[in-house]
């Protein structure tokens, strides 16, 4: 259905080879052109800035002794959705693991994020699932219900994994129907990125980023009045509009103490006071502080080009911003408008039904998951906040230096303790990002709709969907 009739049909090639060559040359040009525009953010080789280490903070890899490598040689397949530079870091960690553990060898396959779930489902029906996957916490309940991922309570028990090893919200996000279904490896939060050069030009102190409502709004006004750049830009539409407006909404919603649903999942509650004030605040930035309303990603491009002074972005943009701005890039927790807190996601490692089939593969998978968790310092260098407390508290992390991302990540790492998540239920992410989700409501409020009214309407629609899913998946 998505194939367009605009796709060229076969052409009768009567006009000789000159035309064919011309077309071929232009097609090649087009291919190169797309490759360039599409891949501008991901060419940095890993391990250049941060030497690869196989030493975790706990000493030698996997040395807690709770898990042992398998007794015979096992080869595992692991899928992840890390198509950016982070994929190279992931591969580096796995390479280190493979050389340290001859009996358990892991092959990584990276799948395009947007089609990740679909590819897993296709692999499940073809009986070709990988053994271990890395996936967002929000995808896990659906994968469990579809028989892709299996519960690993025995892993948590055997390895002593629990809420004391991780921030509580991060740990709890890997649980579905009272079962442990994923081991968190990171959290990726929304942070404040600011341009130090523009701060200086606007007469602001580049070393003290805004921390609250007053200083945030002061910075916006100062930059837009004293420089050619915008102080801040508000996303109001575009292909990524619901997502980008959504994480902005969620951060302020969490700051105001908002909850997505009631406790027994029978009602969606983002139309609460916390939701209304969050959406109204974003609209206020556009209406009263002259922050231009732009389509999705325009604010990101403008920030890279020095035409936007501040941007709140997911942590995965750090590499791009670092490449574009270098020394001028400042990173900080987002300002506390209504309190502390920010939006975040969390990647988990999970065991698939294929991995659980055989005792040896399972042993190997468990050994790897434990090893990865302990060695996730290296994962911090990929631009993610390591989930494990002892990794974030280690000296190597806290006092990280150099050109890599680790020192920048260390600056926002305290957010790991205040970040909150969507409910871990099938399609839970749709409450924020889906049709009639809070993100879409935010774009409408930015466009002039009345916040309470639109949030009420969308929350009611989301409640209908929630009840339908509740019946489907019995939670």
């Amino acid at each position, binding site marked *: *259905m*998505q194939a*367009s*009739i*605009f*796709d*060229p049909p076969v052409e009768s090639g009567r006009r000789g080879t000159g*035309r064919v060559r011309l*077309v071929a040359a*232009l*097609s090649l040009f*087009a291919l190169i*052109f*797309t490759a360039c*525009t*599409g891949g501008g953010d991901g060419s940095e080789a890993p391990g250049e800035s941060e030497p690869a280490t196989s030493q975790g903070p706990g000493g030698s890899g996997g040395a807690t002794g709770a898990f042992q490598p398998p007794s015979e040689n096992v080869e595992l397949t692991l899928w992840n959705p890390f198509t950016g530079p982070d994929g190279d870091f992931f591969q580096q960690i796995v390479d280190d693991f493979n050389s340290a553990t001859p009996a358990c060898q892991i092959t990584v396959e990276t799948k395009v994020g947007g089609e990740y*779930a*679909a590819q897993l*489902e*296709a692999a499940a*029906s073809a009986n070709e699932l990988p053994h271990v996957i890395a996936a967002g916490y929000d995808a896990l309940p659906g994968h469990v*219900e*579809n028989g*892709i991922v299996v519960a690993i309570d025995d892993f948590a028990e055997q390895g002593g994994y629990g809420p004391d090893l991780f921030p509580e919200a991060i740990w709890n996000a890997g649980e579905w129907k009272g079962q442990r279904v994923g081991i968190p490896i990171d959290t990726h939060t929304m942070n404040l990125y600011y341009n130090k050069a523009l701060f200086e030009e606007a007469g602001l102190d580049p070393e003290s980023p805004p921390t609250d409502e007053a200083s945030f709004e002061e910075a916006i006004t100062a930059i837009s009045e004293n420089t050619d750049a915008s102080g801040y830009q508000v996303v*109001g*539409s*575009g*292909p*990524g*509009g*619901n997502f980008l407006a959504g994480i902005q909404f969620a951060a302020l919603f969490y700051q105001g103490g908002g909850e997505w649903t009631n406790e027994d999942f029978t009602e969606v509650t983002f139309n609460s006071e916390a939701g209304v004030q969050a959406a109204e605040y974003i609209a206020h930035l556009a209406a009263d502080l002259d922050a*231009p*309303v*732009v*389509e*999705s990603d*325009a*604010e990101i*491009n*403008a920030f890279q080009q020095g*035409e*936007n002074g501040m941007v709140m972005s997911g942590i995965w943009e750090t590499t791009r911003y670092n490449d574009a701005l270098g020394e001028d890039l400042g990173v900080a927790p987002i300002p506390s408008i209504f309190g502390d807190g920010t939006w975040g996601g969390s990647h988990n490692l999970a065991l698939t039904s294929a991995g659980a089939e055989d005792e040896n593969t399972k042993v190997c998978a468990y050994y790897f998951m434990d090893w990865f968790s302990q060695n996730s310092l290296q994962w911090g260098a990929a631009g993610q906040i390591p989930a494990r407390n002892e990794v974030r508290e280690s000296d190597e992390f806290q006092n990280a230096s150099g050109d890599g991302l680790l020192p920048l990540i260390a600056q926002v790492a305290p957010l790991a303790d205040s970040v909150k998540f969507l409910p871990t239920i099938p*399609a839970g*992410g*749709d409450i924020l*990002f*889906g*049709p*009639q989700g809070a993100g*879409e409501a935010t*774009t*409408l409020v930015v*466009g002039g*709709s009345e916040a309470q009214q639109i949030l009420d*309407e969308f929350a009611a*629609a989301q409640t*209908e*969907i929630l009840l339908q*899913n509740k019946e*489907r998946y019995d939670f």
Partner: protein
Amino acid sequence: MSSMAAASPSRNKRGLLSRIVWGSGNDRRRRIGESPITPYLFILPHFAIFSAFILFPFFLGVWISLHDSTALRDGPFVGLRWYQQLFDPSNRTQFPRFWNSVWNTIIFVIISTPLLIGFGLALAALLNQRLRGRNIFRAIYFVPWTLSVSVIGLTWWWMFNGNAGFVTMFMSDTFGWSPNWLATNPWAWISILVATLWWTIGFNTIILLAGMQAIAVDLYEAASIDGANKWQQFRSITLPSLRPILLLVITLQVIASFQLVGQPQLMTGGGPPSELGGETAPVLLHVFNTGFGGRRELSLAAAMALIVAAIMIVVSIINFRLFSSERS
């Protein structure tokens, strides 16, 4: 299908099965060694492919639309639940968004078809002149059509980008003002139209040009001897002679415009946002997002797709009627 009728023109009243088994004995045109099964064998390869790729998916689609399925989970039978949601005006989640996207698509068809035909015709007329390097121009106009929608979408997204887009910057520098192309209407629709025009105009142009070149030159010679100017020649000779081809191009264009999906998906994401799910969200994008985005409501998407298919069949029948009346 027609080969069946041509190869087996028997007029006997026996059923198909008995004819296959016993043969049609009184068929005068049967030759030695020819089995009555032969025509069916001839259509078998196509029928097999047709069944595998058209019939089976179609009935699977109907089946899925009557269940509550996701990609993996064969859900329970739910009857007409999804159709009810799509046709019930009091439904808050599905009804308004689906029909809004249908309406968006119709708007696009109505606006884009005359433009794409008009410009195609004009370009074809220009390229039909005897000018130097006309083959190069023909190639240039045709080349965009060989690109994929992702290239087109990304290129024009960059061109119209709100901050650094070429068009935006050019207009700001020249006029001191530029619309927010992709985020406000009517500019978002105009951006999509421009991208579509740039991309697909070559196809219409080439077909129409081929039609024009088939028109006998003596008609024009006779007309010019009679004192007709270029415009009169175009109106009285080119257009009427081009009519069958023009109808074909219009039909193809209406269908193509109905299948709009990639350009808004990549350029506007269906926006500017509206309470009905976006002002430039076409129906096929809505179907795709329903089935493969977020909740992955495969069954609901299947029901939508079937309704769209029904609409397309109606449109095709209207087109077919136009063709038939032209022939008679």
